[in-house]
């Protein structure tokens, strides 16, 4: 009886170990390739023959390389992300408050429109947006990217609304009795109570430009390396033409980008779960 238990205990951990290996092997390959001597993908062995820091040097100090301009991409993406994050978090929180805490005639119709809008594939409209931006001379510019990422942000209000719904109504009513207006309630009561969902919204909108490939590829189509975002630039590194010269640099870039993103993600995931579980009680 006891030995059977021990065996089951060992078996349980072996299964976990196997799964963990499965999940970590590609990541390990990313790291070892970024330190390996081969410029292209290493095709013969899993671990490289020798290790070097050259690829990190190459990607951090690219000089006038026409393909790799990693520091510029990083800066571009960071700038876009900061502004996107500010604007779209504000939009999301504003819409969520209006929809959750206030009652007005257009509320239900607006919510229905938002649901319908979310059902269209996001980038169907992007083709027409591209022409609008072209007329405004905003393609291949960071301003254009910020507008593309944050203009429609109000549509993603549902999780934040769900969270606001869980904040007790009596709190607000007490404030109204004290003579507070809606703005004061929003700013002094709801916002301070919504830290998890604010952190979630902020980090989520900050991460969007780092992860997005499709919108960037439509809007930033000049092919000039210095104008790209990280996702677009790294993608160009592994296309048919460049792969054999830049694959290791791509891996190095991937490792570098992963560090800040994973830090943010670890912060966010705690709040994410709180937001989701808090936000879905009333749906």
């Amino acid at each position, binding site marked *: 009886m006891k030995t059977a238990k021990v065996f089951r205990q060992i078996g349980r951990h072996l299964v976990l170990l196997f799964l963990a290996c499965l999940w970590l092997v590609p990541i390990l390959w990313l790291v070892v390739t970024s330190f390996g001597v081969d410029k292209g993908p290493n095709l013969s062995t899993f671990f490289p023959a020798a290790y070097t820091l050259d690829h990190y040097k190459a990607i951090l100090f690219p000089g006038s390389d026409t393909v790799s301009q990693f520091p510029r991409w990083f800066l571009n993406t960071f700038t876009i992300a900061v502004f996107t994050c500010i604007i779209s978090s504000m939009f999301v929180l504003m819409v969520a408050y209006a929809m959750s805490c206030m009652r007005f005639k257009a509320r239900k119709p607006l919510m229905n429109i938002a649901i319908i809008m*979310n059902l269209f594939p996001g980038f169907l409209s992007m083709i027409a947006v591209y022409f609008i931006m072209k007329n405004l001379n905003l393609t291949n510019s960071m301003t254009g990217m910020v507008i593309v990422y944050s203009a429609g942000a*109000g549509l993603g209000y549902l999780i934040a609304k769900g969270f606001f719904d869980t904040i007790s109504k009596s709190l607000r009513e007490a404030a109204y009795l004290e003579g507070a207006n809606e703005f004061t309630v929003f700013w002094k009561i709801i916002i301070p109570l919504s830290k998890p969902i604010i952190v979630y919204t902020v980090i989520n909108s900050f991460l969007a430009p780092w992860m997005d490939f499709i919108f960037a590829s439509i809007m930033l189509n000049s092919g000039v390396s210095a104008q790209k975002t990280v996702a677009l630039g790294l993608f160009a590194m592994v296309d048919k033409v460049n792969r054999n010269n830049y694959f290791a640099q791509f891996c190095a870039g991937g490792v570098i*980008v992963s560090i800040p993103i994973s830090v943010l993600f670890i912060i966010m995931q705690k709040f994410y779960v709180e937001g989701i579980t808090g936000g879905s009680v009333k749906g």
Partner: protein
Amino acid sequence: MERSKAIKQAAVPAKRPGLVRFFASIGQYIAGVCRDFMEGDLWVKLSALLWGSSCAARGQYVKGALLTVLEAVLAYFIPVVFWPYMSKLNTLGTVQQQRVYNPDTRQNEFNDYDNSFLIMLFGVIGCVLLLIAVVLWLRNIRAARAVEVRAKEGKHVNSFREDLTDCFGVKFHRTLLTLPVLGVACFTIIPLIVMILIAFTNYDRNHLVPAKLFTWVGMGNFELLFNMTADSTFAYAFGRVLAWTMIWAVLATFTCYFGGILLAMFINNKKTRGKKFWRTCFMVAIAVPQFVSLLLVRNFFADAGIVNTLCKNAGLTDWLYSIGAIPTANYIPFLTHPAWARPMIILINIWVGVPYQMLIATGILMNIPNELLESARIDGANAWQSFKSITMPYILFITGPSLVNSIVGNINNFNVIYLLSKDVYTTSDQLMANANANEVDLLVTWLYRLTQDQSNYKMASVIGILVFIVCAILTLLAFNRMIKGDKEENFQ
């Protein structure tokens, strides 16, 4: 079930269909405006012409001035800027671009040509503005009459300062919503209208603006998608792509969903040691941004990639060839043969998606009221029973709504498919290739490649509309089911 049917039947006679009700309410509104106009005094009547006049008569000078300025702006922009485009909406332009010799400059110059896309775009914007102007005009008459009545009854009429205070009080929603709604209107709704209209034109590589014109063709593009013709294989490709999209959406969603929950339960089990360590292992996999890990995995499983080398060395490739599972003895076509690529893509998606789901499920599992599980154990339930009747319903209740969203999200999951198949997967099916589709394409990736590689905007927007219809049907079905299975009370 019985009850809900009865309620529905009871409710039907009282309600008219939505569309009829919609038009009836518009009719009533306009009738109301006419009545207000007839009954109002001279200022109200004048405000139909000069928007701010009634406000000025009641002492609301700033508001009156602002309204009149708004009217002037609309009255200038709609006829002067947008009307030239709106007037050509019926033909989408008739003058094609040409180079004409200009004797003054002694050079060939472009004639004053029509750009069909700009006609469409600015025409739609103009129509939307016109609609807004009409609505504002009608509302203004109503508001003018309402203020007149208040003033006559001796009630208080708001000053401009009070109007401003209202913007942070009872009308705070307007302040909050103006900018977000404007953003959505300009960069989502208007572009969507334009793209939906494109589905009814012949805008493709043979009619590219600005060199060529395109025009209306009615339902022709939709017919292409449902009828095979000699020179179009869209109908053939569409059926296949749609089927794979649905299979993919269901499989991708449910494998990740249940995989994540099972993994979370496995790690959270009392008997597991080092929970934090295991969780971190899986977290590392999502720390790498999705596009990096997908591009990496694509090279990992390439035909001449590292996994193939290892399989070859281990003799796996030869063995698979000997049993006829792969067409060549040189490599395993992980991402290049339909029979291999489709399962591989789903497996890779599990690799990408399960850790996320694990995180969410972990958070939810920790919130399950322990008394529920305790009492189940006392009642003699085994692990499976308590999973089936407590844990699972609880998780489903919390995450059910997001499950629908993630199916819709997976139908539109561009990244996984595009990043894994771009430059790697080429179809050997000539009929698919003619429609620029391949076996692993989802509707959205097909849509993307049609626009970016083929400039086939008309078919792309037809497909976009169909994606919307599919998503809408799914969402409606799911909402109906969820309302039936409302278990909110059980857990509170």
